[in-house]
């Protein structure tokens, strides 16, 4: 297992953001975590990259346990993860190339290896012609592809995508989901948070539903019928 949640609960001022969550994710799996706004999807993601730690229970991600992790281990854990956000989080004062190269640069990769990897990845994602552009010069779809390229550049074991299509039109959203499926088919585990699980074709992923911090049976989720 590359991700394990064992009876994880997280409370903010006694308010339960997550309650008694048990999840296991295997290597190379595609997991879709769905649920309405405020269901706890983002909190769950924060626990995976250990930007937040459980109030009780434990999370284990690629061998790092939340109850034993040291501050210095966080960087090592996060180098094994790629993270994509709804609002892209690209650095506006850096070019596409520099944004994508960042995870390699902070890991101490040699400039030659950085160049080789970034060029090949940008070519793969059809962004090579945009490598000198700044984020504000790109369309929303291009920005999200750059964000995915940044998440993938260091060959992560797990790609976490938190509502990656939230700011995109349906056509661009479909292409982003296709890209995630393609990434998953090459062996990288993908965990996708979305409020609209219909974006992901049935049979390509395992689906989990969160509602008010609890994992629920899809049929008992209020919003399921409207999907």
């Amino acid at each position, binding site marked *: 297992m590359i991700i394990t949640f064992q009876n994880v609960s997280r409370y903010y001022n006694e308010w339960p953001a997550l309650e008694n969550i048990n999840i296991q994710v295997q290597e190379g799996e595609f997991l879709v975590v769905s649920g309405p706004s405020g269901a706890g999807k983002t909190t769950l993601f924060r626990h995976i990259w250990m*930007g937040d730690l459980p109030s009780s229970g434990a999370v284990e991600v690629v061998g790092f346990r939340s109850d034993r992790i040291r501050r210095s281990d*966080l*960087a090592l854990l996060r180098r094994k993860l790629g993270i994509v956000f709804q609002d892209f989080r690209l*650095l506006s004062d850096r070019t596409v190339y520099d944004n994508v190269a*960042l*995870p390699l*640069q*902070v*890991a101490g990769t040699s400039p030659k290896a950085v160049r080789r990897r970034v060029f090949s990845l940008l070519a793969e994602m059809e962004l090579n012609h945009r490598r000198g552009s700044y984020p504000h010069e790109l369309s929303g779809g291009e920005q999200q592809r750059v964000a995915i390229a940044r998440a993938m550049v260091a060959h992560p074991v797990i790609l976490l995508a*938190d509502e990656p299509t939230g700011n995109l039109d349906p056509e661009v959203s479909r292409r982003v989901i296709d890209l995630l499926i393609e990434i998953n088919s090459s062996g990288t585990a993908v965990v996708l948070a979305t409020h609209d699980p219909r974006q992901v074709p049935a049979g390509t992923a395992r689906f989990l539903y969160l509602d008010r911090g609890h994992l629920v049976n899809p049929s008992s989720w209020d919003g399921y019928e409207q999907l």
Partner: protein
Amino acid sequence: MIHLIKNAVREGFLNIKGKLASFLITILMVSLSFMVFDIFLVVSWNMGTVLKKEQENVGIEIFLLENVTEVEAVNLADIISGMDGVRSVYYVSPDEAEAVFRADLPEQADLLTLLGPQFHLPASIQIALHPNYRTSEKVGGLARIISGMDGVEDIVYGKEYLPGLTRAVDILEELVILAGFVLALSLSLIVANTVRLAVAKKALTVQIMSIVGAPGWFVKMPFLGEGLLTGIAGSTGSLLLTGAVSWMLSSSLPHEFLPGKWIMLVLILGASSGVAGSWLGMKSGIPKPRS
């Protein structure tokens, strides 16, 4: 590791490049604050030099009774030269005293002629002291011992001005330390505020770096470097400005500029307050990654 360090340095330069104007303004502010300190140091240094020169002249002069022979005087000088705190002794015979009097006060030389050949200036022993014995308590203690010796008629050691001189030197040293402390603290706050603003401006960069796996030191190093550079550049700028002012005033107000050791002290103070300021700024400024 070497690439990581190179990239951290590059991040530092990117930080500065992104806000060159505000960085230069901060350096100017630091320079001006340090200039106040530098001017205070120049004044202190020159006052200190004058006071130290005065202190170097602190010694004891013993006037001997008329009946003390030259042999007895030399013996007394030998005993005194073996005492703690005495660096050297010099016996001044009546003839030498008269020669000195005539040389130093030629306009009053007639007075000796008037008093006749029977009058002799008293023989004396001049005592030079080790530097750490030039305080009023130590000189006073030594003078009390010597005044009880046979053949001593009078003893002179500047007991009127010596306590004031010693106190002035002490106060000056305390003032320099206090001003250095206050200035280091205020400079640290200036730099801390600047770095805090820089961190706030770079919040997304800091968050993303942390999320993509940058080690903590990699995130912090550019800001620490910025603080260090601000401190060094600010203190260097202040020395140049103070040097220019000092040069302009040198003809109308003769004085010395700071010695090398004090210049180094200003630079070290600048560098350390810059780093301390960055550390303070980062402590309150670096955000936790949010999702």
